[in-house]
């Protein structure tokens, strides 16, 4: 909803606003909401309410009716009180960024954001969202700490900064929107988007000490064949299936050498981002088979190993790899 509100603001004004916000509310991992940080404005319903009050006032004036006038006064006064109640629903809350699980580029990243209150007051209808993204609603009723998984769409690999998170509420009467934009230093790691690349002969590990295992038919990828009943499910190529190319099974040949390298040079002449995507896809394949593998990128080498931690280490390297060598920081809103 906030995203819509900013749709018509020209970019230079948004930049100015963003600079002003940075000065007024610098980034912090944990921010308490107070009068410095909360904005309040009437909603559409609030404006309609004011129109209603003026109609009642007109009624009172034209009928010269003291009691209807009193009602108009009461409703005006209620409008003022509603400001305070709306403010109190967010005031005193502590909002902090907890963590975000890494995702592949193009997926939604879910940022775990915690909202807790220092007192026992109930809060309801607290909405959290990033710009142009869906919002999550949470209530603090019996507990005084809640976490929300606030989504943001990723669009590049590397460190992803979704920008300021909007915290807003309309409780209790919907006549006012209380909101704030918080820079919680939210960031998460985005791996390259896996893209299936051309076949590459697995290069044997260089300088290997001949650690060869002859295991039967399940380790190294050999090719595809049509699905037959009884094939193990993890050998099905879901990727082909998703592209509606029919149900194919992956055939694995016996590994000659379990240890292999994922190398930058495997895909000559390909755009560097695409290369990373190919490597990522292959990594996922290889990791599934619990082979030992390593990564070789210009200036980066990860020795062979296996296991989740190892594959995450490699994915991390893929995500943060800078082809030019220089560091480039991207900043969103």
């Amino acid at each position: 909803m906030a995203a819509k509100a900013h749709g018509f603001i020209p970019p230079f004004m948004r930049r100015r606003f963003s600079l002003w916000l940075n000065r007024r509310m610098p980034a912090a991992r944990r921010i308490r909401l107070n009068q410095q940080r909360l904005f309040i404005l009437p909603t559409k319903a609030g404006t309609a309410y004011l129109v209603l009050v003026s109609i009642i006032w007109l009624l009172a004036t034209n009928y010269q009716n003291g009691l209807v006038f009193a009602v108009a006064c009461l409703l005006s006064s209620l409008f003022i009180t509603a400001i305070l109640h709306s403010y109190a629903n967010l005031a005193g809350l502590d909002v902090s960024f907890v963590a975000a699980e890494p995702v592949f580029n193009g997926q939604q990243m879910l940022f775990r954001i915690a909202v807790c209150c220092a007192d026992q007051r109930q809060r309801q209808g607290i909405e959290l969202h990033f710009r142009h993204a869906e919002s999550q609603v949470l209530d603090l009723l019996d507990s005084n700490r809640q976490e929300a998984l606030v989504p943001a769409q990723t669009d590049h690999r590397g460190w992803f900064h979704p920008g300021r998170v909007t915290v807003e509420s309309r409780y209790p009467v919907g006549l006012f929107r209380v909101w704030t934009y918080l820079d919680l230093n939210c960031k998460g790691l985005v791996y390259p988007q896996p893209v299936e690349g051309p076949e590459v002969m697995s290069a044997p590990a260089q300088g290997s000490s001949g650690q060869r295992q002859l295991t039967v038919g399940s380790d190294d990828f050999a090719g595809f064949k049509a699905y037959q009943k009884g094939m193990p499910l993890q050998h099905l190529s879901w990727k082909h299936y998703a592209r509606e190319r029919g149900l194919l099974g992956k055939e694995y040949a016996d590994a000659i050498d379990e240890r292999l390298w994922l190398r930058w040079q495997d895909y000559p002449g390909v755009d560097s981002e695409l290369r990373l995507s190919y490597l990522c896809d292959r990594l996922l394949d290889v990791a599934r088979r619990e082979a030992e593998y390593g990564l070789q990128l210009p200036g980066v080498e990860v020795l062979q190993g296996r296991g989740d931690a190892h594959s995450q280490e490699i994915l991390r390297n893929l995500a943060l790899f800078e082809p030019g060598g220089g560091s480039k920081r991207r900043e969103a809103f």
Partner: protein
Amino acid sequence: MTPQWQIPRAGLVWLICAQLAIAAGLFAVLPLWILMVLVLSCLWRIQIYRGVWSYPGRWSKLLLLILNIAAMVFSFDRFTGLEPLTALLVSAAAFKLLEMHRRSDGLKLIFVCYFTASLQLLYEQTIAVGGYTLFCLLLVTAALTGIFQRAEGHAATWAPLKRGTALLSQSLPLMVVLFLVLPRLPAFWAVPGQQQASTGVSGEMSPGDFSRLGKNGDLAFRVSFEKGAPPSPDLLYWRGPVLTHFDGRRWSQLDPINFGDGSHVAWGGNGTGGKSGSHWLQRIQRGGQQRDYTVVMEPTQRLWLFALLAPDSNDSSVGITREMRLVSRQPVSGKKQYSVSWWPQYRYFADTLVPWQRFQVLKLPKGYNPRAVALATQWREESVTEEAYIQRVLQWFNREFTYTLEPPALGRNTVDEFLWGSQRGFCEHYAGSFVFLMRAGGVPARVVTGYQGAEAHPDGYLLVHQYNAHAWAEVWLEGRGWVRVDPTAAVAPERIEQGAESFFGQSATSLAEDGFSLSRYRHIGWLNSLRLQLDALDYYWSTWVLGYQSQQKSFLQRWLGEISWRSIGLLLFATGGLVMLMTLLWLLRGSLKARRQPALQRQFVKLCRRLAKAGWPRASAEGPRDYRLRLEASEFKQRTKSQNALLALKLYEKVCYGDQPQHAEAFYREAKQFR
């Protein structure tokens, strides 16, 4: 259409309650079918909520709409005015209940409810109705918070009511300030009044009107005199419509069009400026001591107001007519308060009566009451002066006539039949036949209707009831102008001197025939005092709440000194700010308490400060235990009262980290011991 939004249970419950309560408050105004429609809609909505029924389709909605319009046409013969508007809003709200697909629909419905809740006050403005409207507003506010509530469950159903009560009660102080301070504007345009039957003096006088009023115990108006006691009862002639035209049976007001020269009404106040423009105003001479009084009138739906002769008013909504009576700009549709000045001695139009007016006040229908005409001609010829002729007629009335509220019916020649036939009647018979005799004898005369006398309330104001309704005569005499003559006083002087209620007191049951009226039981002491107390409550309600408008200026002057936009703004700002601050403190009370350091910590910090003063400061990275161990190991032990400090530190550890809060008291004691 598929529902995108399901109204929360708590919101639905309170919305339905609010709608039913508002409709119940408008029960007297609404046709019965609307209430049935509303109940049906509520049931349907509940069934939708429960998932039993579905939303009405397009065709059924169209059918409902057509039926509704047809029923509206059937129930009301017109579409302007308050009642059709109210009915339309209530039925529209009932249908909207079936069409809530989004939260914004719910909000629209709630706004309509706010509006209809305040419409109740246009029909009646008693304390009870005021309180009931407040209750309705509370329910609507509960519904408003209800549709934004997300918590579910049994307890959550009551939560909106609590929240709504908090919202409304916190709004009340600011509302009082706004009510007192905000300036009231005059009406922007005339609004159609309610078409209610009204009791009270009407613009006509036909046989039987006043005997009906004579048995009615309803209040007509209240009067309070500014300084001193109210005048004696025989002076209290509350002048209302002046009836000049007689068609043989019915006395009626003169059409203002018949006034040939200049305006008929001179409006009071500053804005209009019409007052000095009317040349006839200069022909009024006022004398005696001026007295100011305020009248609070019950609604009559009519234009005329009541006042003593000779009146004058500075009220901009009040005008004075050529007949020396007051009129209102708009029909008195609610309680109306106006202030009047009274001069007990007066003369008006004493010099001459303009020909066309003389013609009007001497005109009689031809062919009616021949006997009376003959008698009048004869007596007038025998009398030397007009005064002597008047005296002769009054003496005749005094000798041979009887005052009664149950007179026999009269035929075509009402005056003849009354004068020589029944000879029993009350004010309207006496006034009517007296004026007839005057006109037949060539004396300009007219009938004046209004109220006579009043009941004195212990609180010092006067109550004028419908049974005070009265009719008397006015004759024009050369050099004296219009003079009041009350032929009823000639027949039953005690009726005028003592007032209607004591005069009728002997036959008290004939007063206020409806058994529910408390005035029927005025002879029972405690009931009567209860009635008077209730009336005082109602009186102060009407002057301070309903009629505050006319008092606002003097009230603000008393509090602010000079009234200016600046002082009003300042007052609003100051009180508004104070009220908001208090409310905010109340709302944030939990957070504020949480921010304050717990007493235990505060005491510990104090102790550390004292220890530092003694020369043994706590290192910044040192916990209480390390601190204590260090102190125990050092020469600190030689210091007096060191044992208290060490024990206090030990206890602090236990309370803070050892889950033994019972030692807190001991900790405070020991910590305080160390100096």
